[in-house]
């Protein structure tokens, strides 16, 4: 039977990358000198898994590299080696090397063998320089062989095997051993029951017997001992050579069947399949000691290359068992409800109406729960995006001679996988910017009376239907003057323009804007904040910046949790139905005359407790028909968008329901004031309002009208 192990490679790559991420974050948190045992164990386990898998799946370059790393970690784990900063740094580099190797293998590219070899040598030097010299770094386990280096040749072996009484309790069985021996040659077994106690004293779970075995064949001592390897500590084992140099005469010449020795047990398990087969063939031929086939690296790397799958990025997602179990449970309940309804429908009479209604309510409940849980499958904690930053900040701050402490909070805040994948690059850009432009060098900080260690804080939390991600630093803040000058130079603003600091700061999001005096290799390579803003906008998100000169800056990113589903309030305007996201609704109310304040012809405010909320007449913003143009007794949906309240004036409130968001853009385009569309129960399309966009649209409209009336 031959199994193609390459089919497991995708899983192996996925878990290995995760393992490397874990190693990296644990390494970064290790306290040099007083390393936490659990952390070392975790790191070791990750390396260990990668080694085991890569060996099994024929990725030998990876296996060999990881072996050295694992040995180093093993010594640290056993307390034989101290955790030093150079060691940690080298291990971090090794993580990078492994990541590159695996990436190359995954995409079918060539491994940078030179670089890998260089780092591997560094690891080996570190190992040799340590308390445990002479480490086996070949990546192949062959200790059992080196225990018995001498090979004696004879016509066979006399074996005395006396198991200790507990043999059965290890799950071992002498018969199995004999059968295995008979695979190596011809055997004659004689049982010795002299150790058997009187019947009354026999404990059937104990072993009292011993055996004398005459083995005829060309297996050497190591091979024989290997058969007994599992019971080595559970028996007395004596081997005497038959024939050989002494030419023993005690055994009658038995017809020695031609023995085809199987692959040498000592080499085979350690070598991958092609090499093992070669060893087996070689072992079967000569009478002499079976040769130990040394691992042929060229051959193995060829296998590894062949095993690499074509570079197709198949998106997959790892889902916690608990989430899957919850789904299975729910589907189970759904099936029960459905069969209940089926039964009810088979002989339905009007007196069963109530049960029908209950059943339908149950069905609705289960369906909704199922939907929620299915959506949850796509949700991952933002730590997946945050995890790369400890390393990035560590490396960059070292490179730039800055002293930075990275604080992460809210890592468990969940968001949609798609959103997560797309937010990574903008976050990296913002963090790099903060390190490069925001945070000052220690001496500058000292002269300003600031703590020498700067703080960079990544924070995430849920707010309504959004996830908010903040990147804040206690650096210099944005240089308003510089930005202003640059903007004038670029013709974005006029020299005479009076702009608030806030407005000036927003200029950094304009295309082609960079204030870096000189282009460093960290940031300022032309990929500007405009790209960051665009990426975030593409996810229907928003970014804003708050900066206090000398104190630091904070970038706030707001993103929808998921791009797929939303709780909506259905409203009617004329003959159209629109969806207002429930999360943006503060309240819905009937307009009372005394609370309406009209400042200008087109600017109306509504007094809500002690606040004035601008009234947004949806039909005016959308240029559509409506039934009711009189505010009095009309309906107002008070919403919050972009930190601002607004009252949307509509004809009627319909029901609330969850809607599946459909893109308007995939076949059409983005439309201001709309975040998408959905399909209602009757198959018609309803548009989903984009509340922040709508508020903005309304403001622009009022401004335009004001300008028009001023001109007139």
């Amino acid at each position, binding site marked *: 039977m031959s199994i193609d192990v390459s089919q497991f490679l995708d899983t192996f790559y996925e878990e290995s990358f995760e393992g490397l991420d874990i190693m990296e974050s644990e390494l970064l948190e290790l306290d040099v000198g007083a390393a936490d045992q659990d952390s070392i164990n975790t790191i070791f386990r990750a390396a260990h898994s990668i080694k085991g898998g890569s060996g099994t799946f024929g990725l030998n370059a990876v296996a060999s590299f990881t072996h050295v790393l694992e040995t180093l970690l093993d010594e640290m784990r056993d307390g034989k080696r101290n955790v030093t900063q150079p060691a940690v740094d080298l291990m971090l580099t090794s993580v990078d090397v492994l990541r590159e190797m695996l990436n190359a293998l995954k995409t079918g590219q060539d491994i940078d063998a030179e670089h890998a070899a260089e780092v591997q040598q560094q690891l080996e030097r570190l190992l040799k320089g340590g308390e445990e010299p002479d480490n086996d770094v070949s990546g192949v386990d062959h200790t059992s062989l080196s225990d018995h280096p001498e090979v004696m040749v004879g016509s066979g072996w006399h074996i005395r095997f006396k198991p200790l009484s507990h043999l059965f309790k290890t799950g071992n069985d002498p018969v199995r051993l004999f059968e295995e021996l008979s695979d190596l040659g011809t055997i004659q077994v004689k049982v010795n029951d002299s150790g058997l106690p009187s019947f009354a004293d026999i404990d059937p779970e104990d072993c009292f017997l011993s055996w004398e075995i005459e083995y005829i064949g060309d297996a050497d001592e190591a091979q024989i001992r290997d058969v007994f390897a599992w019971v080595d500590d559970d028996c007395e084992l004596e081997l005497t050579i038959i024939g050989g140099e002494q030419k023993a005469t005690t055994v009658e010449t038995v017809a020695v069947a031609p023995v085809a020795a199987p692959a040498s047990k000592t080499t085979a398990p350690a070598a991958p399949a092609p090499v093992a087969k070669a060893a087996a063939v070689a072992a079967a031929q000569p009478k002499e000691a079976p040769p130990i086939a040394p691992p042929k690296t060229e051959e193995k790397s060829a296998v590894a290359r062949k095993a690499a799958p074509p570079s197709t990025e198949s998106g997959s997602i790892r889902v916690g068992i608990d989430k899957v179990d919850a789904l299975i449970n729910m589907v189970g309940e759904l099936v029960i409800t459905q069969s209940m309804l089926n039964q009810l429908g088979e002989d339905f009479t009007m007196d069963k109406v109530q049960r029908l209604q209950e059943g339908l309510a149950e069905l609705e409940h289960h369906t909704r729960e199922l939907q929620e849980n299915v959506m949850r499958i796509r949700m991952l904690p933002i730590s997946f995006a945050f995890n790369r930053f400890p390393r990035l900040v560590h490396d960059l701050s070292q490179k730039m001679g800055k002293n930075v402490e990275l604080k992460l909070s809210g890592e468990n805040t969940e968001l949609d996988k798609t959103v997560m994948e797309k937010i990574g690059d903008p976050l990296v850009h913002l963090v790099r910017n903060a390190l490069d432009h925001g945070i000052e060098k220690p001496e500058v900080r000292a002269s300003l009376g600031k703590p020498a260690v700067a703080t960079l804080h990544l924070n995430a939390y849920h707010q309504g239907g959004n996830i908010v991600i903040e990147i804040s630093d206690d650096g210099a803040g944005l240089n308003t003057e510089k930005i202003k000058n640059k903007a004038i130079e670029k013709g974005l603003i006029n020299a005479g323009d009076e702009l608030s600091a806030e407005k000036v700061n927003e200029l950094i999001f304009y295309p082609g804007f960079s204030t870096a005096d000189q282009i460093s290799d960290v940031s300022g390579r032309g990929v500007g904040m405009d790209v960051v803003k665009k990426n975030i906008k593409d996810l229907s998100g928003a970014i804003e910046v708050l900066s206090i000169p000398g104190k630091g800056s904070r970038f706030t990113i707001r993103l929808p949790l998921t791009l797929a589903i939303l709780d909506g309030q259905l409203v009617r305007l004329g003959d*159209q139905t629109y969806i207002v996201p429930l999360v943006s609704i503060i309240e819905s109310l009937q307009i009372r005359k005394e609370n309406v304040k009209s400042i200008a012809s087109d600017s109306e405010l509504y007094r809500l407790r002690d606040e004035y909320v601008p009234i947004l007449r949806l039909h*005016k*913003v*959308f*240029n*559509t028909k409506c039934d009711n143009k009189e505010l009095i007794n009309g309906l107002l949906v008070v919403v919050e968008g972009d930190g601002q309240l607004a009252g949307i004036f509509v004809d009627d409130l319909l029901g609330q329901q969850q809607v599946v968001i*459909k*893109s*308007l853009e*995939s*076949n*059409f*385009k*983005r*439309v*201001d*004031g*709309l975040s998408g*569309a959905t*399909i209602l129960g009757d*198959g*018609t*399309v*309803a*548009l989903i309002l984009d509340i922040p966009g709508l508020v903005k649209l309304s403001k*622009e*409209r009022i401004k*335009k*009208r004001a300008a028009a009336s001023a001109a007139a």
Partner: protein
Amino acid sequence: MNTVHRMDNEVLGMNGEGNQYLTFMLAGEEYGVDILRVQEIKGWDQVTPIPNTPAYIKGVINLRGTIVPIFDLRERFRLEAIAYGPTTVVIVLKIKGEKGERTMGIVVDAVSEVYNINEDALKAAPDFGQAISTDFVKGLATIDEKMIIVLDIDHLLNSSIVAEAGRLVRD
């Protein structure tokens, strides 16, 4: 869903030279579109209007779960608008653009025929002095003494989306 009929290359029979074109009528003229781009032909049905878009964008429909915009070709060409009648149909087309393939529908007076038209037989369109920009015309073909205006639907519909859509055009 009142689908009139679906186009099927096998039914139509891919015999003869050149590409097959579906023709339709619009204000007395016959227009042609590459039949391979035709996804289906539907009767006119209620649409959901999109606010602040030009009048020729009638709105969007639900086409088996996706949102598809519908353009009125008469209005797009600034021809006189007429009431939709029993022959009015929506031709759902696959449009190629920068962002890949998109699905859009056009409202026309009626579907006409399917012709084999050899690309070589297409003549450059003279400037009609009409509303239809020659930009949107791939060429003219003459079949049975009739002139057929073969449209460049990619260019026509992609530009229709961009043109002024999404802005406050009137108040």
